[in-house]
């Protein structure tokens, strides 16, 4: 039972990383109608900058403070230099250009930081574990990740429902023509939304840093999971991003943790392990296929 709770928390933590990635990306998709494959690059940039600064200064917080603007500014620069030219183009052009950006960023990090992965240490004040329930010992850092994620989700909710900027963004996501009619400076709004998205991606990268290895190409595996989240949640919907991220996080984590045990009850151990490993790695895609059959536009489609 404790194991289940622990895995639930792990799933929650993966879900939160995915939420940070998909919240920004789904807005970019929904508002600018541009498909951006390079979103994972900003996740990678966040992780690299934080790891470097933290190693130099010895302070995780300084690393974080450097990583967030780095991701946001790179994002806005990319928006101004490249993506802006692609808004009116076909999706195919957007896919190819952003694919080019991925190549560029991945190779650039290899030039700057080399091929060896960097390791980002958990800061001392977040290391260690706490006993959540009798017998359930859980790392503080992972709890902090969950806490930050919930905080960001609440902050985003506040921004979208209570502030003027948030309402403009929301209006844009559900009806693109409307923001123009509201007299908003669209060029600026797009750059800001893009920057916000890459900032969140950078934050996700920082938080994943101590859990995973910081390496070139780390952005793509999370990017594809993010796509699954967005497909499940519906393009342009923050609510969908929350639901999709939690679903994917939980299904993936619980699948990997418990499918082998379950299968061993049914088959002999060799077959069971192989089958469970295959199924666990495919679980979220099967989930996605099932949701597609049921709701082709995702759970919470923003455009009607």
């Amino acid at each position, binding site marked *: 039972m404790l194991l289940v709770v622990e895995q639930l928390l792990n799933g929650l933590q993966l879900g939160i990383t995915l939420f940070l990635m998909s919240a920004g990306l789904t807005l970019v998709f929904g508002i600018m109608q541009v498909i951006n494959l390079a979103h994972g690059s900003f996740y990678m940039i966040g992780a690299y900058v934080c790891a470097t600064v933290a190693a130099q200064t010895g302070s995780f917080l300084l690393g974080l403070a450097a990583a967030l603007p780095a991701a946001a500014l790179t994002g806005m620069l990319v928006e101004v230099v490249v993506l802006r030219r692609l808004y009116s183009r076909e999706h195919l052009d957007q896919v190819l250009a952003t694919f080019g950006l991925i190549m560029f960023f991945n190779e*650039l990090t290899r030039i700057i930081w080399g091929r060896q992965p960097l390791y980002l240490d958990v800061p001392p004040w977040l290391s260690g574990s706490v006993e959540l329930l009798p017998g359930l010992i859980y790392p503080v850092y992972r709890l902090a990740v969950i806490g930050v994620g919930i905080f960001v989700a609440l902050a985003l909710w506040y921004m979208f429902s209570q502030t003027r900027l948030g309402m403009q963004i929301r209006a844009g996501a559900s009806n693109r023509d409307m923001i123009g009619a509201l007299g908003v400076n669209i060029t600026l709004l797009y750059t800001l939304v893009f920057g916000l998205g890459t900032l969140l991606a950078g934050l996700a990268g920082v938080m994943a840093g101590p859990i995973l290895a910081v390496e070139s190409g780390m952005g793509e595996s999370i990017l594809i999971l993010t796509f699954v989240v967005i*497909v499940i949640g519906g393009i342009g919907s923050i609510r969908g991003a929350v639901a999709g991220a939690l679903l994917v996080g939980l299904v993936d984590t619980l699948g990997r943790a418990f499918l082998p045990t379950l299968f061993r009850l049914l088959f002999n151990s060799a077959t069971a392990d192989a089958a469970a490993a295959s199924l666990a790695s495919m679980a979220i895609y099967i989930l996605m296929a099932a949701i597609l059959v049921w709701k082709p536009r995702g759970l919470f489609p923003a455009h009607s």
Partner: protein
Amino acid sequence: MKKLSRKNILIAAGALFFLVLPVAATLLEETYFISLFSRILIYAIAAVSLDLLLGFAGMISLGHAAYVGIGAYVVGIFFFHSSEAEPLFTFPFLLQGSESGLLVLPLAVLISALFALVIGALCLRTKGMHFIMITLAFAQMIYYFFISLGKYGGDDGISLYSRSSLPLLDLNSDLTFYYFCLFFLFLFVFFAKRLVDSRFGLIIRGGSNNERRLSALGINPYKYKLACFVIAGGAAGLAGGLLANQTEYISPGLMHWTLSGELMVMVLLGGLGTLFGPVLGAAVFLLLEEILAMYTEHWMVYMGPFLVLVVIFAKKGLFGIIVGEKNDNG
């Protein structure tokens, strides 16, 4: 209807080039070119099949490498079981491994097409950005599936000790293998050309152009698009089957999504919707990669921005630029 247009001259020159290349390479004792160009021919088949989707049917599949990989694994798995002398499965019927090209290559096509049928049927429930992401996600699922197959080497894949056997032809000779691939490329490009001009092709092109109009005329685009997806998947499977033979090695890396992206780059670089262009695109991309890699291991840092520039400024692709006329399909 034979005109001596620039386009036809270019196509004839290209065909001639591919035909005499091994002769020239042998004379110059640069036999390395034969295997490099075999690879180019194989990727050209995959790129042309992707052009059917991207350039004619308007389906932006970002998972095309998966079908190449499946084709390669079909050849690899049959080879593996043949060399281990262990059947693939015994239930519901006994299936033995095989090294026979007459069996494994058609199977590579069929099984890839079958995967394309199932995945396409699901993906085509969606449109636009959803479609792009879902094709990518399913390709990734297949990638992870093959990684989880510990029996076939998991991440590391498996090595083949020889190429598929065929009556009369010895594919282990690089020269024979080159012409074998060239034959399939010619055959497929010819087939694809007929296809896009056929009634089926008309519907496919019409659907990519204005799907609502097509429905209003009484045509349900779904099954035509699905059929096109399956054809492209089968052709990619053929490319995969050949690729497994060319490298004599298969791994999940063959279906990594960056390869899907690279196939797209070949199509765009050569000329979207031209069928011949992607052949040129595959050649240029792989040669460029080869040459850049000689000078710097960080060739992608140049390739990336180059690609962005091509997309923004040279949408017609090399074929379009050289031929100087509009694409077949706008």
